[in-house]
Structure formats: C-alpha cells, structure tokens
C-alpha cells in the first residue's frame, strides 16, 4: 500500500511539473510584432525583431543554461568569471566555516545554559535580543570592523547559525530525564563523564535538529551576503547575471541553490537518524 502511495505521489509530482512547464512554455512563446516602417537600424539598436522573443526566458533557455554551466563547471576566465562549480565551492566553504565556528561556540554555551538555571536566566535577555536580528544587518558593521569582505560573510553565517544551535542545545540538555541524571548520581559518575555519557547522547537528537535549522538558515543567508559583498560564490554569480539582466542564468542559479540546500538538509536529516534513540 505504501509503495503504491509513493508511486502515485511520484506520478502526481511529475504531472504537476509537466503542467507547470507546459504553462510556462505557452506563456513565453515568441510573439509577432508589427514594426511598421521602423528604421531597421533603430530596430537593431533596440533589439527588436518582427518575431519578438519573450522577456521571460523559456524552458528551452533554462535547459540550455543548465547544460552550458553543468557541462563546464570549473572554468576560470579571469578573477571575475569562474565556473559554477568554483562559485558553489566558495559558498559552501563560507557556510561550513561559519557554521563550524558557530557550533564550536553554540554547543558548549548551550550546555552551560541548559545545565545551569542561573546562567539560563542571566544570558536569556541577551539571546532574546540578539536572536531576532537579521544576519545581514550585521554586514556593514562586520565590514567596517573586520575589514575583509570574505571573513565578514563568514561572520554573518556564524552569527545566524549560532542561535538555533544554542537554543536547541540548551533545551535538549535541560530536558534530559531526571531519573537518568539520578541514576548517574547514584553511580557516582563525575561531571565530565556525566556530560559526555549521559547528557550528550540524550540531547543529541535535539542538538542535531538545531544544527539542521542553522544550516538551513546559513544557506539562505550566504546567497544574500554574497550578493552584497561580491567577489565569488553563488550569490555573486546571481548578482553578476543580474547585472546583465540574464534571467535564464539567474533561474538556473535559483534551481541550483534549491538543490544544494536540499542535499545539505538531507545530510543533517541522516545524521539526526544516526543519533536518534527510542525511549523505552
């Protein structure tokens, strides 16, 4: 039954996609334009032709953009024009660097907050104020103080990934069942051992969920950050193509961002499964 459900869902997905592409194709058909007695030179300067291509790229344009970029993803034609694979690598590097730094700070701090009601109360106001700030709002300040565009974008990733991880870690640590802690106490387990052998495994699924949320946000933010600072990365790629109003390439990049984001999310989903446990 479940197999036939997946099958039917798959068929519906494909039909929806086909319907969407069909409607898109229909809406972007070239139109006949009556140029009247327009000077052919003027028409050429305006990019006008009697058969006018649509402003919005057609499914065919997107297909050819995908093919062009994926068939040669690692070319370097100068410092401002590099293949999509290289751009993607730059973005991923920034995301991973910012994310790793955030994890280094957020997990220990989350532990502290989760284990100590005092620290929880003391730090809570700061977290509540800092958490809702849009990460990009930090960008001008970061650029001014750090004085390096690439490190500033890593900092922005850091600051946006830190909160979900910290809050989830604290929550996971605080919700470890009291009887487990009581057992640990009875067995006279030291505090370090207690943290690693009891609390960490118990809180791991919640921490992983926090990480998964953080990664999702980081991937959203990197595109915007790179559009601001330029240079390299998938966000810069979109900005550069926007400069040229080349929407086919912009749409290609949007699709790619979606696919990569999905893969990142799947990885954290799998990790979450590894550390999850069933309470008995």
């Amino acid at each position: 039954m479940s197999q036939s459900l997946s099958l039917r869902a798959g068929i519906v997905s494909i039909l929806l996609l086909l319907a969407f592409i069909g409607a898109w194709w229909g809406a972007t058909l070239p139109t006949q334009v009556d140029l009247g007695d327009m000077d052919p030179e003027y028409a050429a300067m305006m990019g006008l032709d009697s058969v006018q291509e649509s402003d919005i790229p057609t499914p065919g344009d997107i297909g050819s953009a995908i093919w062009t970029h994926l068939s040669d993803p690692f070319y370097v034609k100068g410092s401002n024009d590099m293949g999509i694979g290289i751009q993607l690598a730059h973005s991923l590097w920034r995301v991973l660097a910012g994310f790793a730094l955030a994890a280094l700070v957020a997990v220990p701090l989350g532990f502290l907050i989760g284990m100590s009601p005092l620290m929880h109360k003391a730090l809570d106001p700061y977290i509540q104020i800092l958490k809702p700030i849009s990460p990009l709002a930090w960008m001008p300040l970061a650029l001014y103080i750090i004085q390096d565009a690439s490190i500033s974008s890593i900092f922005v990733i850091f600051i946006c990934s830190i909160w979900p991880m910290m809050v989830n870690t604290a929550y996971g640590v605080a919700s470890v069942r009291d009887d487990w802690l009581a057992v640990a106490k009875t067995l006279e387990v030291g505090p370090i051992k207690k943290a690693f052998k009891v609390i960490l495994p118990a809180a791991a699924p919640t921490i992983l969920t926090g990480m998964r949320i953080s990664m999702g946000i980081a991937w959203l933010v990197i595109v915007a950050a790179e559009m601001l600072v330029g240079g390299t990365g998938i966000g810069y790629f979109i900005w550069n193509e926007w400069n040229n109003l080349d929407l086919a390439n912009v749409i290609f990049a949007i699709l790619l961002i979606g696919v990569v984001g999905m893969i990142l999310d799947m990885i954290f989903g799998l990790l979450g499964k590894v550390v999850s446990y069933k309470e008995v």
Partner: protein
Amino acid sequence: MSTFDNPFDPNKSLHRGCTCGKHASQADHNAAVAATPNPTDEEAALNRAVESSVMRSLFPEDRTRRNFLKAVGVSTAMAAVSTLFPMAAAKAVAADPVGPLEKKKLKVGFIPITCATPIIMAHPMGFYEREGLDVEVVKTAGWALIRDNVNNGQLDASHMLSPMPISASMGIGARQQDTYVATIQNINGQAITMHNKHKDNRDPSNWKGMTFGIPYDHSMHNLLLRYYLAEHGVDPDQDVKLKVIAPPEMVANLKAGNIDGFLGPEPFNQRAVYEGAGFIHVLSKDLWDGHPCCAFGATKTFVEENPNTFSALFRAIASATVYAHKKENRPEIIDAIAPANYLNQPKIVLDQVMTGRYADGLGNIITEPERADFDPFPWESMGVWILTQMKRWGYIENEIDYADIAEEIFRATDARQRLAEMGLPAPEINSKKHMIMGKEFDPARPQEYLESFEIGRA
C-alpha cells in the same frame, strides 16, 4: 656600465645600445634594472644617474669626455661642470622615483560600468603587464564597498566616483583617510533616463513629486541631477525623492515603475532603452560638456609607500585612458570589456554608448560622437566645483578653503609631470573655467558661485 656607475670614471663608456651598454635596447635595460634589487644607497645611485646624464649632454662624444677627465682630473672636472650646470638642483629633481617596483601584485577595484573602461581594458589589453604589474581587477558590488575596501587596504587602488576621494579625505560619510584623484577616467557618458510613461512630460519643472535613482550620494550623478532639477526650479530635497540604487538595479526598478527616472552611468541608460523600459531624456554631456565622472583613486598612504608602483599604475591607466579617447580604438575596446569577467553586457548596447550613434527610445537615432569620452587630466577646478555643490546641498557644513582642498586631492601637478614624462599632452594650467548648463563657473570665486544659486542648503 650601469646608470648608477661613476660617470667621472674615464675608463667607462656612457654610450651604447642602452645606458649601460650591456643590453640591446633601453627597454631591455629597464627590465633588467627593474629586476635587480634596490641599490644599497638609493640616493647616491640617483645622484650618479643625474651626473651621467649631465656628462652625456655636455660631452656627446664619449672620447672627448674621457680625454677631458684624464686631462684635468676628476675633482676639477666635477667643480667645473658644477659651475656650468646646477648639479644639486638636478639631483633634487631626479629624486622622483625611477627605481624598482615596491609591489607587483595589486588589486584594483571597479564597478561594471563603461566609466571604468580604462581600468578594465588595461587588464585584457595588457597595459598593466607592460608596466611589469600583475593586477587583479576586482568587480565590486557597490560604491560603499569600494569605499570600505580602499579604506582598509583590501584594494590597492580603485575606480571611484570623482567626489569620493573628497568625502574620504574629509571624513564625510566615510572613515577619514587622505585619498587622491590620480586621474579622471571618463568625461561625459552619463544620462537622465526616464520611464516611458513620461514621454510627453519632458519639462523638468513638472517633475515635482517624482522619484529618481542615483548610484551614490557622493557621486557626480547626484550633484548633476540636483543641479539640473534646481535649475528648473525643482528643489531636489523637498520636491522630489532621490534614492540610492546600484546601477544594475536601476533598469529593473525603472521597468517596475518604482522610480520615474534616474541619472545613471552607462551602459544602464542605453540598457534601459534596449529593454524597452525608458528613453534617454538628456545626455550629461548636454548639462556640462566635459564633466568629470569617475576617477582613478588611491589613498595617500599607498601612493607614498609605493611610489614606483604607483607611477607604473598611473602610466598604465593614463595610457589606457588616452587610448580609449581615440575613437578608432573603441571597437577593439568594446570587444575587450564586454565579456562576463568585466562588464557582462551585450555588445549592441556598448556599441551605442561608445560610438555615440544610439537609439534614444523615442524612435530616433542620434549621432553624438562625444557622448562618452575619456581624459585623464584631473583639473583642480573640477574638485572646486564638486566642493561648491557638496556645500550647496549640505554634505559639507563647515567653512572650507576650496582651492586648498582641491589642490591636495586632485593631483593635477603630479599628473602633468607624469604625463609629460610619458610624452603625453597635458594642459599647462591646473584650473580652468567650466560652463555648466549655460552658466559659467569660475574656480577662483567658489563662494560667489555658491551664493548665486537660489535653491540650496548653504
């Protein structure tokens, strides 16, 4: 023998293929000198170079010089020559650096607009390489980022809007840092582009309530648009809204109707026409023929710490600017700067900008060969004009010495000397009168000029 050897040594020859005679040509010699490390005592070496050239000019025949030195002895010769020629003064003049490059790998920023043509084309067309520089031209997302990255040294030098070095040097909307206009990049080459819905509303005095895009506050675009509106009785602060929009976003915003028009850099005016979003209302050339737009700037610190590198960079960019000025070179330049690594624009649009034969979006083909032009000389009077306007609109609030500031930032004297060394023509004066919308601007009387405007904050 090298230029730095003793010219009073009778056994050495001063005349051969190059100044030292070891190389086939002067170019080879220069390359070899550039490659060798600093002479231990640079000043002494320079003095020797001066003495060499003086002796060469006094004794075109090397044999005569050797005989003269042998006959009278070196110290007598020195004294004799010194009475004939002010050797000390010549040595001081030559203190201008001619030594090896302090830094070869450089980062130079640019915004992808045709204003930056010389900075950009110098990369694919080898102008930097010819000077022994390894320059990376860095496409940058906006003017604020250019400001910050020049300020913090991530960029060694950069494409800037002409008012930006002034605002940086004065610390207005920027972290204070002395910054120079080494050369102007382009003159003219901007336009006011209006939304198609205003095709029948061409009189600016009817434009109250509209919203306009400008690329940056401290830009010629802002100052020219304000001037233009004010000349038509529209107060740019009270009657209209001026929005800072990055040039690439201008076309999309115009198309969406978020702005009624913009005074922006090319190719985005022509691109707006090409996209069917608007029409070219007036070229900036028709407001002020020969107005400066963008500059090639660097911080004082960079210039002083890297004098030879800066000279080389100046030579590369000045010669690219002069090359771009020549109309016959434009097609080759368009091919060089159109690709995605640089401007990333369709050639048909760039053609219209650079040749000046263009569609105006109203159904006419217009031929205006001076639409976009390139001229490196940084007139101090341009700086004074910018200062009057920055004061007029309240960007500068305190009393200032116009001529002093302009002279310090717009390096006209330096530029003349360097251009002359390159054998390029340069004006003999640093300041001249300009004609802006039919009104004369006299750089000698900035305050009077400022007070002559009815609309303004000063």
